[in-house]
């Protein structure tokens, strides 16, 4: 959508253009003998925000850099809006990017930074100024337009970087851990701000992060990566409640590893029979059940009570509305997450009875937890 120089449009209108589909087809990238990306396939629907989540070295940043053209793929294709851009240089890929490190040009004001991409596209000076102003208004920084990077806080700098990336109306917005350099409070605010702006503009977005809370909070779909491959791609709720693999279960959120025995599609954990997520594919035999802390509840019992699910509270962590308790069952410990109001009834040292909710669980044969 083009905007005339005299057009009186709001930020979302001036930024909007038909959202593009982005496809990563069998993308691979090696660094010497190290495989960074191993045949990654991912389709991002128009206007969708997909977060790539994974531990360091899983290939998520490499994937983003291949889309941006900042690195060359060893194999596969990047298709943006139906156009194969794999061989195009970064400057011609029509992507907007926000970096992890502060990337504002120090010798330019916020307005000049935002207008830079437009200048590269030979947009007239008056139009540049108007659109830069609109973008800064979109991120709530129109009053800071004449400030230099060193006069802005970290959060403000990243908002200007977001405005700068959006000003050129790219086909895809690439966010490379843009919040990781910020403190927790600003990070949370900016996360919501990014989501608001992304929805308002309706731009296809690829967001890379190692912070699961960030990914689950912001994304339409989350792709969990491991060793250059997508382990699972799905809505945040599915990723959390129905992890496809033990790695996903253990990487996203906390899990208890409880020994059990699989028989006939259920796993017996200390006398409690829990349904399995992938019952048909799980053979019978000993296994480790992965149980979320919030699927465990507590009840007070007499100090002398005994049994496989009786234990002693050995630690209580206050997390605000909820508390996380560590219960020693004798041969193992269990994390329990319950409302803080309930946790008050179970101080450290008290005897408790653990109850497992009958949610479907995933089991693994690996005795060691997956590396986070």
């Amino acid at each position, binding site marked *: 959508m083009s905007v005339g120089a005299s057009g009186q449009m709001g930020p979302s209108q001036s930024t909007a253009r038909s959202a593009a589909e982005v496809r990563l087809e069998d993308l691979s990238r090696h660094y010497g003998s190290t495989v960074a990306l191993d045949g990654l396939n991912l389709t991002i629907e128009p206007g969708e925000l997909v977060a790539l989540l994974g531990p360091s070295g899983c290939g998520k940043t490499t994937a983003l850099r291949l889309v941006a053209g*900042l690195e060359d793929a060893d194999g596969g294709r990047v298709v943006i809006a139906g156009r194969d851009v794999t061989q195009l240089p970064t400057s011609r*890929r029509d992507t907007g*990017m926000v*970096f992890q490190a502060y*990337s504002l040009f*120090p*010798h*330019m004001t916020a307005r000049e930074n935002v207008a830079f991409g437009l200048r590269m596209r030979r947009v007239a000076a008056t139009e540049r100024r108007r659109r830069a102003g609109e973008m800064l208004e979109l991120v709530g920084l129109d009053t800071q337009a004449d400030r230099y990077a*060193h006069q802005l806080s970290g959060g403000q700098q990243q908002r200007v970087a977001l405005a700068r990336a959006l000003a*050129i109306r790219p086909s895809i917005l690439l966010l490379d851990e843009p919040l990781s350099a910020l403190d927790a409070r600003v990070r949370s605010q900016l996360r919501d701000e990014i989501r608001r702006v992304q929805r308002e503009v309706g731009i296809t977005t690829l967001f890379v992060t190692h912070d699961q809370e960030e990914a689950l909070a912001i994304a339409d779909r989350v792709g969990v990566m491991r060793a250059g491959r997508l382990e699972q791609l799905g809505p945040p709720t599915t990723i959390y409640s129905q992890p496809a693999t033990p790695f996903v279960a253990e990487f996203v959120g906390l899990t208890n590893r409880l020994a059990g025995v699989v028989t006939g599609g259920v796993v017996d954990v200390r006398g409690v029979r829990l349904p399995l997520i992938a019952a048909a594919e799980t053979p019978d035999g000993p296994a480790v059940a992965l149980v979320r802390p919030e699927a465990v509840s507590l009840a007070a019992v007499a100090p002398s009570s005994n049994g496989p699910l009786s234990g002693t509270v050995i630690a209580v962590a206050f997390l605000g509305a909820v508390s996380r308790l560590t219960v020693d069952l004798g041969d193992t410990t269990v994390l329990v997450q319950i409302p803080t109001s309930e946790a008050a009834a179970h101080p450290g040292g008290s005897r408790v009875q653990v109850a497992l909710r009958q949610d479907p669980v995933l089991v693994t044969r690996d005795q060691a937890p997956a590396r986070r």
Partner: protein
Amino acid sequence: MNRRRRRRLAIFSAVVYVVLGLFFLIPIAAMIEFATRGVALGSPRTLSAFTSISADPELVGAIAASLELALIVSVGVLALLLPTMIWARLRLARLVRPLELICLTPLTIPAIVLVVGFAPIYRWLEINFSDSILILSFAYLILVLPYCYRALAAGLATVDIRTLSEAARSLGAGWGTVVYRIIVPNMSSAVFNACLLCVAVVLGEFTIANLLDFENLQVAIATLGTYSAQESIALAVLSLLFVFVFLFALTFLSRFASRRRGAMRG
């Protein structure tokens, strides 16, 4: 820091400035005193040694040649070295060390040894290309490499060139724009310093020009010194003053550029 310690530090700074100032100013004052002496004992001071410089066309030619060489070498070394250093840091990190070694090597080779190497090349150049003194710029480009490399390397170390260049490229900038519109403005002090060092080295160079039989400023001063010591010293004073003025101008420009962009990192 308490007041007493601050005062002691201020006194120490003042003493350092005064001592260094005297160290530089006394010889210059002595040169001026000598260059302005009258012909006979007791005769009044005169500026004739200074005014006669412009009347000597060979001298003026040598000064002009040195200034042209300084300009050519400054532009040439920046055009050659800056993109190479940026490119090496961005795309060929393994070449940064070898590049540094190559650039610093001329420091370790005495000028006389350099001339031995240059001589046959310059003979060929004079026969087949040009016998203008400006061909000295090839030799001077090598001579100033270590100084410029260090100045530019110090500037590049203060800028996150990788992130800035990637940001600029993602916004549609080509490599030329990245270098000259994004990186250079953020290391303008280093560029000015490199320019200053170039000018100082070129204006002060004697050995190579003399042994290759070209007459630049220093050779002219030395030649002049054999028959007119006062004029020779007057010319030396003027060349020193020129470098000082140039230094102040570059410092002013550098500060102006820094003020415009503010501190590099907030």
